[in-house]
């Protein structure tokens, strides 16, 4: 019997390294050749029906009647669905939203009817023919107005709404959720404060503006199975939501998600999927495709949340922070959706990454007559960071300290507690002082003059710090399966959605590292299918690589045990004597002796035909550990696995004649725990910085006094374009998070978080006035200066 064989490897098995390498995306060639199939790339299929949404032209009104008879007469129209045909309420954590408005409309752009037709243009024509009689109601257009005692009520039946997760609406008001932080003793805090400052800071609602519009198709098969194709960050949540809302057994709902054309949180909400299902159901289950126009995508689908914040901070003579009193009024829009959870997240991290022993914070998600808000990159943090970091700059000036020195002095660290009274250690918190120190070197802080005037041009640098925990459900989890092929390659199955962030490629790097294989030997598709892929909670909160990564490491370990067991029989040794690497299982003490994985991937066949074992399939899963719900009275609890921290800076040049400005430099130093793919990491961070600068400098929905949105197009709603990019500097600190694969921390959102704050701080220094309101347009700067004289 042949057993041990020489592998012809004299120097033994070199351990391959995959982590820390900038390998290209697996789907590179598809993307540069235009062959990637995004969701709407199959909408030309013959037989497919098309749906369009008719939207409300009023922000707050009772629906007295809907007349769709003219629309129905158009040739090619198959069905028209109104809210009366679908009397359900959706939304998580609080079910407050009908997919199509029922008795009243609560925002301009709300769906009032859904038209199904043979062609898209026919559905579009018909949508314009829907006639609605309204009785107008007074509108509420800001979260502060919504809080007033006599404010019109947007949801009269708040008490009756079903709650799916912990959420605390206050019936009889416009408050969809309130989170309280009560830490320490405020009286004492103020008593010990020699300096105090107060400031109000606002950021408006804006748009995610992924270049791919939201799109979804649905089909109900004769056996009752529901097939959904959706550009989504949460295919498994779609499955649950459709199953729950329409009483369909979970396993009969099958969701496919192909590569997504950008998302930024906007495609984590479930919206189009309900509509596509209703459309298909109305036409006997035929396949129906629903794609937004840009205009509808911007105003009808959920948007980026706004915030009105009031901050009061106090510190001692030496600059030690003593007390913080914070009120957050998040602008959740007409329905709460994830806005309710974002407002909680805004309480959890309300102080920014600073040690403050006495904290009082109320963070509210307010209903307003505006588009509803859902997750946006940073999940409530860019907004709260703008507020707290404006306050930090003011307080530093008041104390007379250098703004970075002041932050360094108060930086939170191991042994401190967060506003939720979570005890911090070196693992669950990144190293902020180190980030600040690196930032200082990177921008030559000590030689830099904060403000430099040359004629009518003023250069200035603003800084800020950020932190973020993930605020995931306490049971968020993921699974992974790895299947070995007889060529020694491995198929990785998992539910993480590829939205451009490079997750699926990065995951192959984690697996390659653990199996000590070449990444090219690991196959992964770019599509997720809820029927065949292991579960994953959602691709959000920069948590995919953490959750799926842990699951796949478990799967790899499971497979390694199987490989060793078979190899041990073939090599006549014990499994403990074996190791796996470079496509082989080998004897640790004699690395030249071993067997190729391809010979045992489907079991090992002896020369006489006898076979042992079978296909090697590794399985693994992981769920969040030790997280707790927050105490509703004090906010005490453990909101997530770790805080990623970082320090950022922006340098601007302000033209004091026109108040236009150039962003010259933008800098991020972030504690990434472990950088898996340096090129992806940099690209994620600079991409996020760009988005943050774009939204801080120009992005906002413009409403008229009736609540209509006046700029629902990229022509009027401006985004940063090529040529406007500043010079980017990115650097990393690596303090491992022990629970995470190879110590990594979330980094997908974080580049964005401090950009509005650093930009506002730099422009405030340059302009010599306090700029506390986004967007920081030349007009806004001019008005602030003009108002202050």
């Amino acid at each position, binding site marked *: 019997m042949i057993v041990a064989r020489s592998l012809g490897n004299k120097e033994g098995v070199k351990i391959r390294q995959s982590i820390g390498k900038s390998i290209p995306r697996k789907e590179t060639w598809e993307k540069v050749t235009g062959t990637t199939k995004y969701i709407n790339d199959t909408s030309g299929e013959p037989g497919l029906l098309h749906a369009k949404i008719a939207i409300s032209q009023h922000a707050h009104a009772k629906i007295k009647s809907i007349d769709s008879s003219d629309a129905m007469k158009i040739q090619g129209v198959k069905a028209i669905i109104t809210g009366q045909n679908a009397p359900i309420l959706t939304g998580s954590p609080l079910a407050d939203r009908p997919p199509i408005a029922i008795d009243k409309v609560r925002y301009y752009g709300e769906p009032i009817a859904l038209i199904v037709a043979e062609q898209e243009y026919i559905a579009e*024509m018909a949508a314009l023919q829907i006639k609605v009689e309204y009785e107008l109601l007074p509108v509420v257009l800001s979260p502060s107005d919504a809080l007033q005692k006599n404010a019109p009520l947007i949801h009269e039946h708040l008490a009756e709404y079903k709650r799916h997760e912990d959420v605390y609406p206050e019936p009889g008001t416009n408050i969809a959720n309130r989170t309280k932080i009560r830490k320490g003793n405020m009286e004492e805090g103020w008593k010990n404060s020699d300096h105090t400052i107060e400031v109000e800071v606002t950021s408006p609602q804006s748009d995610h503006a*992924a270049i791919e519009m939201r799109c979804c198709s649905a089909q109900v098969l004769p056996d009752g199975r529901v097939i959904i194709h959706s550009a989504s960050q949460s295919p498994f949540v779609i499955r649950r939501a459709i199953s729950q809302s329409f009483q369909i057994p979970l396993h009969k709902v099958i969701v496919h998600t192909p590569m997504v054309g*950008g998302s930024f949180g906007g495609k984590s909400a479930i919206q189009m999927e309900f509509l596509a299902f209703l459309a298909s159901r109305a036409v006997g289950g035929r396949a129906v495709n629903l794609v937004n126009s840009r205009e509808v995508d911007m105003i009808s689908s959920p948007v980026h949340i706004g915030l009105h914040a009031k901050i009061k901070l106090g510190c001692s003579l030496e600059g030690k922070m003593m007390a913080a009193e914070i009120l957050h009024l998040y602008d959740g829009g007409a329905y709460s959706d994830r806005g309710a959870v974002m407002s909680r997240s805004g309480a959890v991290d309300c102080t920014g990454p600073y040690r403050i022993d006495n904290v009082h914070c109320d963070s509210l998600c307010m209903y307003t007559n505006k588009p509803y808000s859902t997750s946006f990159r940073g999940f409530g943090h860019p907004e709260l960071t703008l507020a707290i970091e404006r306050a930090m700059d003011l307080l530093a000036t008041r104390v007379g300290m250098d703004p970075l020195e002041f932050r360094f002095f108060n930086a939170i660290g191991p042994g401190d507690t967060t506003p939720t009274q979570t005890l911090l250690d070196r693992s669950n918190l990144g190293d902020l002082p180190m980030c600040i120190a690196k930032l200082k070197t990177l921008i030559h802080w000590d030689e830099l003059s904060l403000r430099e005037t040359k004629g009518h041009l003023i250069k200035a640098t603003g800084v800020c710090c950020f932190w973020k925990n993930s605020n995931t459900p306490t049971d968020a989890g993921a699974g992974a399966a790895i299947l070995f092929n007889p060529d020694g390659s491995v198929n990785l199955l998992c539910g993480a959605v590829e939205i451009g962030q490079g997750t699926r490629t990065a995951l192959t790097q984690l697996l390659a590292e653990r199996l000590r294989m070449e990444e090219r030997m690991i196959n992964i598709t770019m599509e997720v299918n809820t029927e065949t892929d292991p579960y994953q909670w959602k691709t959000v909160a920069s948590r995919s690589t953490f959750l799926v990564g842990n699951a796949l490491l478990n799967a790899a370990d499971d497979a390694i045990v199987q490989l060793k067991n078979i190899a041990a029989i073939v090599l006549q040794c014990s499994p403990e004597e074996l190791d796996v690497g470079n496509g082989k299982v080998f004897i640790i003490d004699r690395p030249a002796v071993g067997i190729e994985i391809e010979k045992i991937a489907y079991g090992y066949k002896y020369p006489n035909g006898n076979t042992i074992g079978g296909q090697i399939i590794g399985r693994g899963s992981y769920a969040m550990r030790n997280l707790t719900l927050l105490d509703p009275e004090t906010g005490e609890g453990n909101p997530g696995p770790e805080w990623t921290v970082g320090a950022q800076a922006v340098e601007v040049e302000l033209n004091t004649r026109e108040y236009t400005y150039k962003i010259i430099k933008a800098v991020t130093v972030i504690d990434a725990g472990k950088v898996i793919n340096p*090129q992806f990491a940099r690209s994620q961070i600079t*991409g996020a910085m760009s988005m943050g600068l774009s939204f801080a400098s120009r992005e906002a929905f413009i409403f008229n006094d009736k609540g209509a949105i006046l700029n629902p197009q990229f022509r009027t709603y401006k985004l940063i374009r090529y040529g406007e*990019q500043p010079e980017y500097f990115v650097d990393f600190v690596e303090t491992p998070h022990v629970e995470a694969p190879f110590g990594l921390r979330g980094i997908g959102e974080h580049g964005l978080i401090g950009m509005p704050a650093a930009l506002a701080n730099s422009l405030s220094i340059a302009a010599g006035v306090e700029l506390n309101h986004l967007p920081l347009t030349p007009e806004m700067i001019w008005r602030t200066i003009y108002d202050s004289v």
Partner: protein
Amino acid sequence: MSSYNSALYPVEMEINSEVQTIRIRAADILLYTLRDKFGLTGSKSGCDNGDCGSCTILVNRQPMKSCLMLTIEADGKQITTIEGLMNSQVQNIFAQHQAFQCGYCTPGFIMNCEGLRNVHPIADEETIRVWLESNICRCTSYEEIHHAVKDIFTPK
């Protein structure tokens, strides 16, 4: 209101080096004819309003936003879509620099660069900026695209 479908007009154009004839409605838009009638889905819609550039193709070797062109206007024209490029240098350089994330804007950027090369084989920075301003990428910071484009227009 029943005559949207009735009038169809013949159009002949060369798409990716093949002559094609097709009957279309007067209101048909070139982007959707290419996508729905010819399966050339590499050209993307991001606004249908000329604002984002993700639908950029070449018409007679010059870049054009195909959402702004009626199909009937393409009669007798020579059209190139991303599918018509065969491993071009621009594609290779975009791949090398990983000048994309989600990739949705990428065909538009690549076609615009191809067009720029046809018109200005040695474009300077300012020309590049003016041309590429017409495309939006929401994922990247444009830094990677900038590096790729610099590489394309640096004489080798």
